[in-house]
C-alpha cells in the first residue's frame, strides 16, 4: 500500500520540550494515503506527544508540520481536523451522558458544517453501520461495555470523515473476539474510505498483524522505521522494546 502517492502529512524535525525534559526531538515522519501505520515504543517514548503534536493539541517547540505540502505548524486541533486529521484519545474518548447515536452525530456535525440535518444524520448512520453499532444506537454510551465504547470512539472519529485517522491505544482492554473485530473494522474503514490509519498500540501481535509500516520511538526519537518484518528483526528495536519473544 505504501509509496503510491505523496504523503498527506509530513513532519520536519518536529519536537517538543517540557522544561528540561525532551518529550520528542527531531522527528521526521510521513503518513501516506491509505496506509496503516503503527507508532510503537516503550512507555515515555513520546508516542502520545507525537499524537498531540500532529493533531494540534500540543504546539511544537521545534520543527515544522506539513499537510498536503502546506505548513500547518501550530494550527488549532479543530482546524487540523478540518484538513482531515482526526484522532481518538487513550482515555475518555466519548461523551458518556449522550446516546451512541448522539455521540456519532457529533463527529458528523464536525465534518458537515453548514450542511442540513439529514445529511449529518445519514453520515452518522453510515459510520455506525461501518462500525457495527446499529444495534445499540439509543443506548447511553457511558453504560456500554468497554469493547463497544472503544468502537463508539472510533465511530465518532470516522463520522468526521478523516483522511488520517489517529487511534490512541484502541485495543487496550479488549478480549480476543473484540480485538479481532476491531482489526476487521479498521481494515474495512481503510478500504471503504481510503483514509490512512495511524495506530499507537502496545499489543505487538495486533500491530504486526495489521500495520503495513511501523515507526519505533525511543527516548523521543525515531529508533527505526519500516515494514513489520524489518522491525521485528531489528536488533536495536528488540533490545529497546520488543524483547526476544516478539522477535520470533
Amino acid at each position, binding site marked *: 500500500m505504501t509509496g503510491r502517492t505523496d504523503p498527506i502529512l509530513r513532519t520536519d524535525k518536529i519536537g517538543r520540550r517540557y522544561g528540561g525534559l525532551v518529550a520528542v526531538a527531531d522527528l521526521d515522519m510521513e503518513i501516506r494515503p491509505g496506509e496503516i501505520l503503527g507508532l510503537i515504543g516503550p512507555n515515555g517514548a513520546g508516542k502520545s506527544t507525537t499524537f498531540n503534536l500532529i*493533531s494540534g*493539541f500540543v504546539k511544537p517547540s521545534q520543527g515544522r508540520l506539513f499537510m498536503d505540502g502546506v505548513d500547518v505548524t501550530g494550527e*488549532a*486541533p*479543530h482546524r487540523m*481536523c*478540518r484538513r482531515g486529521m*482526526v*484522532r*481518538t*484519545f487513550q482515555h*475518555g*474518548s*466519548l*461523551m*458518556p*451522558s*449522550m446516546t451512541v447515536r*448522539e*455521540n456519532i*452525530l*457529533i*463527529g458528523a*456535525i*464536525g*465534518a458537515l*458544517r453548514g450542511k442540513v*440535518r439529514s445529511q*449529518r444524520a445519514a453520515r452518522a448512520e453510515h459510520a455506525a453501520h461501518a462500525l457495527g453499532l446499529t444495534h445499540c444506537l439509543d443506548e447511553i454510551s457511558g453504560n456500554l461495555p468497554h469493547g463497544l465504547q472503544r468502537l463508539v*470512539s472510533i465511530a*465518532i*472519529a470516522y*463520522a*468526521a470523515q478523516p483522511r488520517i485517522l489517529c487511534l490512541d491505544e484502541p485495543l487496550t482492554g479488549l478480549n480476543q473476539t473484540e480485538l479481532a473485530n476491531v482489526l476487521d473494522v479498521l481494515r474495512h474503514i481503510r478500504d471503504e474510505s481510503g483514509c490512512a490509519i495511524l495506530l499507537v498500540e502496545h499489543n505487538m501481535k495486533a500491530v504486526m498483524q495489521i500495520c503495513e509500516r511501523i515507526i519505533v520511538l525511543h527516548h523521543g526519537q525515531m529508533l527505526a522505521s519500516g515494514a513489520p518484518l524489518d522491525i521485528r528483526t531489528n536488533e536495536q528495536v528488540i533490545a529497546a522494546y520488543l524483547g526476544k519473544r516478539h522477535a520470533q
Partner: protein
Amino acid sequence: MDKRVLYSGAGAVALLCVATAAMTAGYGTNLVCWIAIAVLTAASLRFVMLIGELNFATAAFVGLGAYGAGVATTVMDWPFLLCLLFGGMVAVVVGLVFGYVTLRTKGPYFLLIGFAFTEVVRLIYTKVHWLGGNSGMVGIFPPRYLDAWLPTFVVAVVGVLLLALYAIEKSHFGKTCIAIRDNDAVVQSVGINVHMTKVACLCVAAFAAGIAGGLSAYVNNVISPGDFGFLLSTFALAYLKVGGEDNPLGPVAGAVLLVLLASVAMGMGAGEHVFYGMAIVLSVLLMPKGITGLIQRGWEMRRKRSAA
C-alpha cells in the same frame, strides 16, 4: 427535536396568556410578571449549564438588558418593542466580548470571573450619573396600550423565549453544547471550534437574560444598581436547583415555587430570610434532582408498576 413537545408547549403558553389576561390587575398580576421574569433568568442560567459552566454573570446580563431598555425608553424615546430588543442586544454584545475573553477558563475560574464581572458592572451603574447613579433610573413605562396587557405580554414573551431555548437545546447546536460539557477534547478533535461554540451559547443565554432585564424594567418602572447584584444569580441558581436543572421545565417549577414562597415569607418580617433559606435547603436535600426529577421518578415508578 420532538415537535409534539414544542406544540404542547406553545399550547400551554397560549393558555397561560389567556389565564393572565383574565386576571384583575393588582398584586396577583405583578406576581405573575415577577415569576415569569425569574423563570427566564433561571432558564438563561441553565442554558449556559449546557456547556458545563455556571454563569454568575447572568445577573449582569439581566442588568444590562434593564439599563439598555431603560436608556432607550427614557433617553432616546424609542418605540417599546425596539427598546426591549435593544436591551437584549446590549446584553448579547457585552456577552460576546465577555465570553470571548473569559470562556477559555472553566469551572470555578469562570464562575468567579462571572461573579466579579457582575459586581463591577453594578458598581459602574452607581458611578454613571446619566444612568441615575446609586438611585437608579425611573419612569420606564410601557406604552399606554399595554397598560392592561403588560402581564399577558410578559408571559407571552417569556413563553416564546423558553420554547426557543428548548428548540435550540434540541438542535445540533444544543447537542454540540452538551457534548462540550461531557468531553470538550473529543468535540475539538472532530473539527468543531469549541471556544466559539461556547461563546455562541453564552450569547443566546445573554439575550434571554437581557430580555428578562428589559421586562423587569417595564414591570417595576424603576431600576437601581442593587437589583442586579450577584444575589440575582444566586436566586436563579436556587430556582434551578429546586426545579431541577436536567429538565427544561426545571426553571419554571423552581421559580414558581420559590417566588410564591418568597411572597408568603414577606409577611414574616425578620423571619423571611430564615424561612426562604430553609425552604431551599429542604428542597435540595429532599429532591436532589429537583421537582421535575421527583415527578419524573414517580412517573417511571408508576410505569414500571403497571408493566409488572
